[in-house]
């Protein structure tokens, strides 16, 4: 029994990574009704930027904040320059755009910073958390930041005028325009916010998985799995989904023979497909009504 509880705790700890990534995924989905396959690469790039800033002597939190701002702006720029022109194009074109972005960012990161693995600092230290062998202070910090982020997003969307406008633009764009909301800019801001959240995810994850251009590949898939499980329309669901996926991964690794680190991705795949088929809206998402 104790092993079980320990594995759950450990799962929550690793799940914080997926939860954070999932938040960024859901954020973009809310804004544009699409899944951005390049989300992970954007987060990775942001993390590299922060690393570079620190190499140049900027202290950790300064680099963190600066990266956050740069990522926000970067997200907006990418949307305005590359995706706004595609607004009316068929879905295939959008998917092609995301894939192209994925390829470019991954490649450019490798060109600028090469593919050797780098250490990335954590502001939380890596001592055992409250004496527990299973959660380090860094992981506790991750969970804390993720929860804070979630609360901040919740307050933003539910209690500010801007958040209300964004929700309206995503929900019924035409009606949003008819109350004076500039829906086009709402999309750009959605991208900016998603990029910023992604950068936070990257900077929290890098200390654990080490910084290199391919670090986000698996994490992204898990982030998708978490977002899908929690419901693509629910930030809360995304975070819960992240923790659940972390727990599931840990339990599967412990109790199912033959399943180790090697099967991480196939498990995520199976999870994604199962959820999308059985309950496409996820645990907390709004059911999608198809009007015929």
């Amino acid at each position, binding site marked *: 029994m104790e092993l079980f509880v320990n594995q759950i705790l450990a799962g929550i700890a690793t799940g914080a990574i997926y939860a954070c990534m999932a938040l960024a995924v859901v954020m973009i989905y809310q804004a544009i009704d699409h899944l951005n396959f390049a989300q992970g690469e954007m987060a990775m790039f942001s993390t590299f930027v922060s690393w570079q800033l620190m190499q140049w002597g900027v202290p950790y939190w300064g680099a963190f904040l600066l990266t956050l701002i740069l990522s926000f702006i970067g997200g907006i720029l990418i949307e305005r320059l590359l995706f706004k022109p595609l607004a009316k194009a068929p879905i295939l074109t959008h998917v092609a755009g995301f894939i192209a972005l994925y390829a470019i960012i991954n490649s450019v990161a490798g060109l600028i910073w090469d593919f050797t693995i780098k250490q990335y600092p954590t502001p939380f230290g890596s001592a055992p958390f409250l004496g527990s062998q299973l959660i380090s202070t860094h992981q506790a910090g991750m969970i804390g930041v993720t929860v804070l982020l979630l609360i901040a997003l919740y307050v933003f969307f539910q209690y500010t005028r801007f958040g*209300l406008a964004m929700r309206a633009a995503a929900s019924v764009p035409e009606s949003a325009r008819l109350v*004076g909301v500039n829906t086009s800019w709402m999309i750009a801001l959605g991208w900016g916010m998603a990029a910023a959240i992604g950068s936070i995810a990257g900077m929290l994850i890098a200390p654990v998985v080490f910084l290199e251009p391919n670090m986000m590949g698996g994490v992204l898939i898990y982030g998708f799995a978490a977002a899908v499980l929690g419901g693509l329309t629910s930030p809360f669901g995304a975070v819960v989904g992240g923790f659940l996926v972390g727990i599931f991964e840990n339990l599967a690794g412990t109790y199912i023979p033959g399943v180790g680190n090697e099967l991480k991705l196939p498990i995520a795949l199976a999870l994604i497909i199962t959820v999308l088929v059985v309950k496409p809206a996820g645990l907390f998402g709004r059911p999608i009504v198809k009007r015929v």
Partner: protein
Amino acid sequence: MTALLNIKALNAFYGQVQALHGLEFSLQQGSVTTLLGANGAGKTTTLRAICNMVRTTGAIEFDGAALSSRSTENIVRLGIAHVPQGRGTFTTMTVEENLQLGAITRGDRAAVLSDIERMYAHFPVLKQRHTQQAGTLSGGEQQMLAVARALMLRPRLMLLDEPSFGLAPLIVRDLFKILGKINREEKVTMLVVEQNAQLALELADQAYVIETGRIVMSGKANEIADNEAVRKSYLGY
């Protein structure tokens, strides 16, 4: 009385198909005008053209400002509220959030809050349901919500697209009574597009009849109501 809205030589297109042909009319400030026509005549297209939601050529002037070069959002900010066909309710948000959205472009927080109370006074049923998800309201209630939402803008011009659609006659009567009251008390100019000619002609001062994208008749509402051809085609007697 000055013309608040002036439309000259308006053509509207859906892709290659031309839906409006050389439309011309104007709305006097403070008046209620109704645009009557059968299905597919171009009534909705006219409203959409005013808000620049379809491709147009020609001139649309609102209080001296040209509309065709502005985006829909900016046209709204000039003071034109459009209650679309089907109501366009934000179904996943609460009634109160829908009202807040109506005023989202306004900066005067205190006035917005008092306006919300005023809407609840006009439409008590909305106050009852103010924390409910808007999608769970009945058709009539959603229509009232849509009108209230439009009023939250404190518009100078209100465009209403078939407000009676799908509603029971008694509810429509109440709704039109409220519209008349709002026009008189709050001095909101209205353009009401309707298939339900009878009530629309009772409410309106001015009337136009549109057929296949062209205005075929215009005049005072009571004169149009007495017109033989209109009575036969649209009033059923």
